[in-house]
């Protein structure tokens, strides 16, 4: 019985955190463009590329 007093709140807390996390992600617009997100990962980050090139030149 005493384990339950710790375990149940702990389980609910963890579950609740993930729910809050999901709602936050939803609110911050992360689900608005799922197709775009999967494509954007393929795009090169220009600034880093330039920095890398600049580093090579030196």
């Amino acid at each position, binding site marked *: 019985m005493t384990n339950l007093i710790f375990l149940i709140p702990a389980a*609910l807390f963890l579950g609740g955190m993930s729910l809050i996390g999901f709602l936050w992600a939803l609110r911050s617009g992360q689900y*608005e463009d799922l197709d775009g997100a999967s494509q*954007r990962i393929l795009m090169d980050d220009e600034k880093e590329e330039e920095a890398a090139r600049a580093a090579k030149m030196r």
Partner: protein
Amino acid sequence: MTCCAPGADMALQAAGALPSDDEVVLSSRALGNGLHQVELAVPGVHCAACIQTIEKSLGKLPDVVSARVNLSTKRVSVQWVGEKLPPIVQTLVSVGYVPNLFSTEALASDKALSELIRAVAVSGFAAANIMLLSVSVWSGAEGSTRDLFHWISALIAIPALMFAGRIYYRSAWSALRQGRMNMDVPIAIGISMAYAMSLYETITHGHYAYFDASVTLLFFLLIGRTLDHVMRDRARSAVIGLARLQPQGAVVEEKNGRREYRPVSEIVEGSRLLVAVGERVPVDSIVESGQSDIDASIANGESAPQPVAPGKELHAGVLNLTGPLVLRALRPASSSFLAEMTRLMEVAEGGKARYRRIAERVSTLYAPVVHLTAILTFVGWIFATGDWHRSITVAIAVLIITCPCALGLAVPIVQVVAARRLFEGGVMMKDGSALERMVGVDTVVFDKTGTLTLGTPRLVNGREISPSKMAIASELATHSRHPVSKAIMAEGIGMGERFDEVHEVPGCGVKGLLGKDEWALGRAQWAAPKSLDANGTVLAKNGSEVARFVFDDRLRPDAKSVVAELAGRGVSVSMLSGDQEAQCDAVAARLGIDDYAAELLPADKVLRVQALAEEGRNVLMVGDGLNDAPALAAAKVSMAPATAADIGRNAADFVFLGDSLDAVPLAMEVAKGADRLIKENIGLAILYNALAVPIAILGYVTPLIAAIAMSASSLLVIGNALRLMRRKRRHKVAEVVAPLREALT
């Protein structure tokens, strides 16, 4: 340029002119601090390279603060500072993406979707946690431990029911208030009763609590509802993203000579309007000065462009082809041709409004039967045992077990799967009920111009004209935007002979000097006055005819095979057109349509469709023009191509994106398959009830049995619906074969 260099989508765009800067400004909104934002649809984006190209090129513009592409909705949202609009449209076109404006009222539906997703998340969280606690109870938690678990479940269930359940409570309440019954009424009653009884059981240290059942039920139902919503949203946003054919405004010349761009709603009778080449006439008006040709195909179905001169009346929506026009508005937008069509549409709306959805019909029977069974069970148990508590428990168990979980999922899931299949075939379904109405269609009515044909002329006798003359004609044709010129250009190969002093005479044709000879391409009457036949298009050298061009309207690819296929299925096909008899006769003969009517007014089309409906036929109307919109509304179910007038697109239940008319038999086939599955699913749900209800009435249902029965029936229904996806492979093959066939013919 990239893997997806625009091209496929360009064909779609050709019909609509680019949004002008004034229109973009009109549809932008101020964000404060001098910041403005506008959203444009860019149907051409496909991949990461597209996103990058657009964002980079727009980001380079000096005043643009941010540009962000949404690939899912195929839109780009641009923010800029200052009053002056940066050249957004021009930039997009220069990198190869044709933007369209869309109406902002469509964005409201996004709110409903995010409410649904939040509800799914909350109910999912609650269902999972309560289910875990329930499993402990089922596996033997006793005494105070069980009570503790029940109490925790009750606490978790309350916010879930309030937050996620309110969607159902709201819908059930509004149905009841109007004296109707819908599927949400038994759902709302079921979950509330289950909760109330479980709470009582918990307080009195009872054995059985149904918190898990009531929350899981909610979770499953919300999933079905959300999927349905997502599907419809996707179809709707794809349709919204299409080029808009109705102008949002026009350049108005004030009395003091100042020119200003005004929204259509501010144009009054007597306003002087300037309509440039390539623009559409915003309101019914009369030509004051200027010469041009107009394309009225979208307005009244006439395929051949007509010359216009001062004094000619123009309907709203016609396209100005060759010369700038000054018009005087005859009527404000609210009583223009377009508004008249809207009114006709409202009057015509019959078949659709009267149709009641299968789910609705089932629920009007279902809910009373279920509630009556529960009451009878209660009365029966009271008589048999006299035990109030026991009787109420059993009656509520009946309510829970019959809660239409499978039934609530049965219809939307099938429609979601069907909509997905149609979507892949390039057909957008705007409403689930359209699929039901499509079943049993036995008469297909086609419009001619723009539906059976592409609405663009095609040169018929190009091979009979000598290549040298063709070369001259096509060289001259490059100087005109007239559709006939474009048809000549498409057939002829320019020889690179340069003309001097080429100029276009609006409403007549193109004239140019080659050496000492004056060549003219255009109306016979103007180019070669001595010619015997004053009608038609000719090429003339120094005023005498040297070649005559014959055009006809280009048929949609597959139009003929689709008509034959429909006839083969026993569907009667007819054609209603606003065009002239001769044109209709030619098209009807080529397609093998026996039943056609020409020179119809919009109201005539409605009457014809209604007459067919009165004969007891189920009419599918396929049309694109402004003049078809009322008939689209009058038919039981309707389809429109993506190139249709906005009002027609909004009136139609289905919008197909490709050129091919194959979409019509595809939609009919999917509708038939979906109908069978819906009926099967409802049958399964009834079978489930037939098995489960006696068990419930006899009082043998425990929370464990309820949970298993409900989940099993839901999974069965979903699994059955997914069978519709399996037949897709055959269509994939057809997709590969179709272009090959086209290339060969």
